[in-house]
């Protein structure tokens, strides 16, 4: 993991920033969200992929790409969470001030 982090820090940072931006936008976004049942299915899919990665059942390059994708996705989600939370704080701060 450390090795991947040092080897791909650029891409990982990009994922994090992308997530942060997406999280920032998501709070005020008016578009259609993902429906609950679909979100559940997606969570199951993500869990299955994480399980496959941890069990190391996918061989060779595909296994590497899976690892890489999951790490980038995890950082994306972390970025989203941080972005949304901060935006929310900022908005609620404004609201209180108003």
């Amino acid at each position: 993991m450390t090795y991947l982090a040092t080897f791909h820090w650029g891409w990982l940072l990009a994922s994090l920033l992308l997530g942060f931006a997406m999280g920032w936008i998501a709070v005020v976004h008016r578009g259609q969200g993902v429906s609950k049942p679909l979100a559940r299915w997606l969570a199951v899919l993500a869990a299955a992929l994480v399980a496959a990665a941890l069990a190391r059942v996918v061989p060779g390059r595909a296994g590497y790409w899976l690892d890489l994708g999951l790490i980038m996705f995890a950082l994306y989600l972390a970025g989203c969470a941080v972005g949304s939370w901060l935006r929310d704080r900022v908005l609620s701060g404004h609201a209180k001030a108003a």
Partner: protein
Amino acid sequence: MHGFFRWSSKWWPGVIPLVVFWAIAAWTSTGPLESDLAARSTAALKDTVLDKSRVAVAGRDVTFAADAFSEEGRRSAVAAVEAVPGVRLVNDETRLVPEAKPFVWSAERDVVRVTLSGSSPLPASKGKLLEAARAALGGVEVVDQMNLSRGAPPRFDNAALLLLDQVGKLKDGKITISDTKVSLSGMARDLGGREAIAAALKNLPEGFSVAANEIKAPPYIFQAYKDPVAVTLTLTGYVPDNSVHAAIVAAAARKFFSEKVVDNLKASVGAPSGFAAAVVPALGALSRLSTGTLVVSDREVKLSGDALYETAPAQIRSNLVKDFQQGWQLKAEISVKPAAAPVDATVCQQLFSELLGKATIRFVSGRANLDPDSAGLLDRLIETALRCPTANIEIGGHSDGDGENAFNQTLSEKRAQAVMEYLVKAGLPAGRFTAIGYGSARPVATNDTDEGKAQNRRIEFVVKE
């Protein structure tokens, strides 16, 4: 908290650029990542002892194939690759080097090269053996056909290095180690090489033993060539030591009265037993030939050349065989020289005087038995007598002034008689010769000095018309 779920349901659009990022990252990083991991894995294996080591990387998975020399070494090599940061999985395709049973190694030498084959325990010892072979055999091509195997006996390297040294002493042959048994065959390069190898084998490391040593020594060769044109006798080859050397050269000087002896002999060990006892009579046989070659190879005596008259070849052959010790063989190819043109009595006398001027017929001291050293001279006298078939010849025996007159008289008579008998035995008609003893009555020099006495003890040939 409710808000958090609401927001998260709207995070999905960012996944689209994320997938694009991911695809680009995967596309550009896979190659560099694989080569980086391969380099790190290879570096991690630098200090391990492996054969046919091969590292292939797909993604972060390393396929590692190698031949290890022990189970422990194999496991630690796999562990070293597993410990490389970034490696996800190691596909372990390592195996142990096959065990050789029996563990056989050999070095074979032919004319132009030395071939090392069989099993060698470790890459390092293989390299060491090759290097030692190149050093021991300066300039000779060394061909490596060695495999790596487990199961070498302890101290194998030392034994093999010692044996490689011996390969340098061989002209051709093969040295084999089978487990702890050493066997050798072939031909030593020099006389004494066989003995040197046998001595070196005593230093084999503990546990090793010689199963068979069939190294042959090169033939022990002595050669003598009588050249009638240069009037020389050339001696080449080997003699066992300096005293035999001196004895042979002295015998040659006595037997070859008119030839100059060219001595190119070298002393060397390895002579067959009875060497001097065979070579001296063989030189006597050669002295009876007009031109000829004597080759003594181990215990085989080859004599070839031209005898001076009809009955000589058979005589030479039978006399020589009589002198040989057991185990010695004679191969004689003696032809007879064509008879020289007849001459008249005066010329015959001249020829006799010339021959007897160069050398005298010798007898055993105080007796009337012909000395074998005079065989060459006698054959030349016979040849000359055959050239004047009508002349009658008086064989006169003379003694020095020492001793009683009656004894000297009888001795000189008997000696003249012995010479005559020798000539008759060679096929000359007895009627042509008269043997007369003169005792000390006709000295040719003073009897006061040893030199003069030696001159007075003589046989004279006088042609009667």
